[in-house]
């Protein structure tokens, strides 16, 4: 029977010749990722083993990744104690894919995983973070789960009772106009679908625009697929995926590249031509409140954030550095830059992007998630307006329910830093 890409991956993960949307399965997990919330996973894991007489042992330490990234370095003794608990557990269980607070190998989990070659096409990845969808950019079925579900995965090595999701096929064609990026595409798509338009479904990306898109751009699309409610956002692995694995993750991959069948059954097909797309802005307080930048008039910003698992990669820093080179961040604007990993930070240093951003007045932060979800570094004042390349603008998201967050591409963020109001990058030289 013809299958979508996710159906093919799940058939492989359950050893069946075919599966279809709606089937209930127990797929084997190839990679189980968590971050600081591993502290809670450890509690729940211990709870499962309690009174069983079975010694506490994860199913396969080589398939577990833990990356400390949400509150690093620790902002409180409580966090520090949780992180210590994770280190003890990692040591005892022999978990090697552990990335502590280190400048040589740390960073944000959704960047650290692919750049270390942990994300293998065709695999099943679960993570205790909703943006685990990111890894679909390399042709995996990757989805977010809660801490208790992760404890169950650590115990059994499978996800229990997974319903095979239906798939929405998204065809993207055309060449991005200058100043328009994959972030604008995904914001546009979320605006079109709404915040729940893909709930319980997978977005499968196709078309010449996707074929020509770098893995970095694909990560942005897959990352934000969850903002339309999607279980995952997936790009079929191709030559670009192999190039990324070899050149940027330093691992060769010779396995099969799974493709969806031509006659697979989709719930919906959406076509988008990016050649007419404008820069897009998600306005407060929902990610689907998306408008073209031309409709955003005279919105003055207090803080600008470039970074996160969505847009903190090298190409984002490059775009921002090019726009800000020789210019200044407006006097009354605070600009914070969070590279997605220390590897990216170092490369941006080598290429001079960091110096250009600093010369303009940006503050370069250590690679972490803190600001994006309002846990530390860059909290907003009452009435503040933040313009951010991150992925969420819910009320209170950046630490203050009396502030507003707008979402945009790195180019819009950089152009707006100069003027202090939300600005179309196509008008800035």
């Amino acid at each position, binding site marked *: 029977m013809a299958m979508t890409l996710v159906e093919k991956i799940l058939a492989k993960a359950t050893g069946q010749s075919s599966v279809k949307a709606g089937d209930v399965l127990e797929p084997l997990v190839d990679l189980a990722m968590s971050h600081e919330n591993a502290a809670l996973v450890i509690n729940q894991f211990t709870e499962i*083993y309690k009174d069983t007489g079975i010694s506490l042992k994860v199913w396969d330490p080589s398939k577990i990744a833990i990356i400390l990234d949400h509150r690093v370095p620790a902002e409180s003794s409580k966090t520090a104690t949780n992180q210590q608990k994770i280190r003890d557990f990692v040591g005892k269980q022999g978990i090697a894919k552990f990335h502590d607070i280190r400048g040589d190998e740390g960073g944000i989990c959704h960047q650290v995983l692919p750049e270390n070659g942990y994300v293998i096409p065709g695999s099943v990845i679960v993570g*205790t973070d909703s943006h685990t969808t990111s890894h679909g950019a390399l042709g995996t079925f990757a989805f977010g789960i*809660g801490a208790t*579900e992760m404890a*169950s995965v650590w115990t059994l090595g499978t996800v*229990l*009772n997974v319903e095979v999701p239906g798939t929405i096929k998204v065809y993207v064609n055309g060449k991005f106009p200058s100043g328009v990026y994959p972030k604008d595409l995904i914001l546009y798509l979320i605006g079109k679908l709404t*915040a729940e338009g893909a709930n319980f479904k997978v977005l499968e990306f196709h078309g010449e625009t996707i074929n020509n898109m770098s893995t970095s751009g694909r990560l942005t699309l897959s990352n934000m697929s969850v903002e339309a409610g999607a279980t995952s956002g997936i790009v079929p692995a191709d030559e670009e995926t192999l190039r990324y694995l070899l050149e940027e993750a330093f691992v060769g991959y010779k396995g099969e590249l799974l493709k969806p069948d031509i006659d697979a059954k989709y719930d919906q097909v959406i076509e988008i031509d990016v050649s007419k797309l404008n820069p897009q802005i998600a306005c407060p307080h929902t990610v689907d409140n998306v408008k073209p930048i031309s409709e955003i008039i005279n919105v003055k910003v207090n803080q600008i954030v470039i970074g996160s698992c969505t847009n903190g990669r090298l190409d984002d820093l490059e775009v921002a550095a090019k726009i800000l080179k020789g210019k200044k961040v407006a006097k009354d604007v605070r600009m914070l830059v969070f590279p997605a990993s220390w590897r990216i930070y170092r490369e941006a240093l080598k290429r001079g992007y960091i110096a250009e951003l600093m010369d303009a007045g940006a503050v370069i932060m250590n690679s972490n998630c803190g600001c994006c979800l*309002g846990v530390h570094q860059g909290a907003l004042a009452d009435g503040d307006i933040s313009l951010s390349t991150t992925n969420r603008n819910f009320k209170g998201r950046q630490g203050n329910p009396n502030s507003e967050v707008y979402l945009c591409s790195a180019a819009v963020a950089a152009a707006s830093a100069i003027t202090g109001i939300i600005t179309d990058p196509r008008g800035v030289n």
Partner: protein
Amino acid sequence: MSHHTSKVVAILPNDISTDIIYPGRFMATVLPTETPQYCFADMVELNKRLKNKEIPQGSVIVAGTNFGCGSSREQAVSTIKGYEIVIVAKGFARIFLQNSVNLGLKTVICPAIEASEGDELEVLPDKVVNHTKGKSFPVEPLPKARQAIVDAGGLIAYTKKRLLEKYPNR
């Protein structure tokens, strides 16, 4: 009025995110015994009523579609579970619904629900009866895959059972 009725203590709009239910800044708090204090922390009135125990267990919050959208943070479920509040919503976001099933928070999918604060509701397996308005609304059953976890008493119990099956000669 049936003795099984519960009062609606709040009506919430569509797209209530996990940042509203349990703001990110409290995420270092993970223990289910400690998370309830931050339930709807930025909705100051509702948070105060919960913390002051002015809201009896079993009370109902009625919400729109996409309740629990956003983060996978399980605290968004354990914080509500701490008060044994029932959520009757027009729809739930996937991860939130799964976390609720796993932790045993009662979530009822009721796409047509009509209710106002103070209404007396009776939540039955197949419908929600609004006694104040004299109307009833059908409930969407949980998918079978999820019902099995509810029936086992949550995911911890369900997984424990599977673990014991895996090591029969322990």
